[in-house]
């Protein structure tokens, strides 16, 4: 496959890629620290994954195999659209199989299958600042990160416990990276947080509108914030997948009628299909 000759390889011009690549390298060298970058207007709107797209475009080479998921699925409209964008502008091979991909761009999920050393996971990030809901001023949060002063967040979580008896954050659950930087894992469900810890793959995060890039290198400690007497607990719907029978994956709830009928199915469609195929083969 070749790329559309009307565009530079992977759309971005070379000087933009260079600037983004430098930001990515510094982000990897300072795990969890948000590096500002000169984010460009992309031909897709802010909020549609422009940060992830710019990171992917800067990392991608002709031999890569790209997978794009949104909500865990390859077939959601925005995932389809982003995959088509890179097929057109970079001519790269794409796949829906997690195991075959070298770069996986994602919105809101980490694949169920354990990622490997040969892979890069690129997250689309809406709000990179984990403290944003507690302190919206960037000038101030930057200072707090510099001093590793995360008291605000601990107070917030503690108030949750006082009020609800447990930490009432179910997604975008804040993590400490290598015990230094507080980081937003992007709006993945807290269920996915443990997968970030010591992951063999490189994790890159791009926030286009907020103009920040950050990273977690492979084999890096990522700890979900908690308290000794109130340990972190990931939430998932207490059901089995209707399609593959899985009892340990993250599930979507699907309404099947207007009388309260609902079923639960895997959010990670590739993983689910793999399990269904295995089940069929076994029968």
């Amino acid at each position, binding site marked *: 496959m070749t790329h559309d000759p009307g565009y*530079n*390889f992977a759309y971005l011009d*070379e*000087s933009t*890629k*260079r*600037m983004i*690549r*430098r*930001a*990515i*390298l*510094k*982000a*990897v*060298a*300072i*795990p969890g*620290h948000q*590096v*500002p970058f000169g984010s460009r207007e992309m031909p897709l709107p802010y909020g549609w994954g422009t940060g992830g797209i710019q990171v992917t475009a*800067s*990392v*991608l*080479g*002709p031999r890569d195999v790209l997978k794009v998921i949104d909500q865990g699925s390859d077939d959601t409209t925005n995932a389809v659209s982003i995959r088509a964008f890179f097929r057109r502008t970079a001519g790269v091979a794409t796949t829906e199989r997690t195991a075959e991909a070298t770069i996986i761009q994602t919105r809101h999920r980490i694949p169920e299958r354990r990622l490997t*050393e040969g892979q890069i996971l690129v997250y689309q990030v809406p709000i990179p600042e984990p403290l944003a809901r507690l302190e919206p001023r960037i000038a101030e949060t*930057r*200072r707090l*990160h*510099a*001093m590793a002063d995360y008291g605000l967040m601990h107070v917030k979580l503690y108030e949750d416990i006082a009020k609800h008896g447990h930490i009432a954050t179910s997604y975008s659950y804040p993590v400490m990276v*290598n015990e*230094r*930087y507080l980081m937003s894992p992007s709006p993945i469900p807290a269920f996915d947080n443990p997968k970030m810890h*010591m992951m063999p793959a*490189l994790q890159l995060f791009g926030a286009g509108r907020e103009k920040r890039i950050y990273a*977690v*290198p*492979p*084999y*890096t*400690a990522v700890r979900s914030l908690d308290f000794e007497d109130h340990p972190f607990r990931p939430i998932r719907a207490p059901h089995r997948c209707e399609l593959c029978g899985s009892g340990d994956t993250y599930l979507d709830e699907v309404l099947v009628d207007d009388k309260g009928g609902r079923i639960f199915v895997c959010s990670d469609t590739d993983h689910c299909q793999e399990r269904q195929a295995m089940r069929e083969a076994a029968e």
Partner: protein
Amino acid sequence: MSAGTALAGFADPVLDSQAAFRAVLEAMSRPGRIQRLPVPPELPPGIGPAAAAVLLALADADTPIRLAAGAEAQAWIRFHTGARAAPAAEAAFVLDSDAGLLDLDPGTEEEPERGATLILEVESLSEGSGWRLSGPGIQATHRLAVAGVRDGFLADWAASRARFPRGVDVILCAGDRIAALPRGIAIEEG
């Protein structure tokens, strides 16, 4: 036109830059693991293939450079990247084996990403023996043998690392091979 500009840069500027960057990214993500870079077909004297490839891939008019490789290499880099020369303490990229880690820009507590990248040309790199590296990017420990760094490098490294998140990231180059030492990595002598 000055001397260095007669020589070409990367054979394929778009794809070679991408491949060189990916090698540096891989090196920075997995400290101490050796990566190979695509190298330019011809080089001015005073600069090795890997160091040249790193600069061609990453430097531009926004990155002041300190180069101790001589006027021809300087002109060549300037021609192909647009990067201007700067004193070591102000440079984003430093290719100067005399430059001390502690003399370079370590960034600030709020903007540690401004910390410089030091490109060090060494005699040889090999894995499996030598320094013991540990930290983010390394599952337990990783061994890297480096020949040809100046005396006192490890003491400087420990002092530089103590400033984290401020600090300097190092790319070691030998021939067309590199290994990286991001600022937070702990190094013990082997």
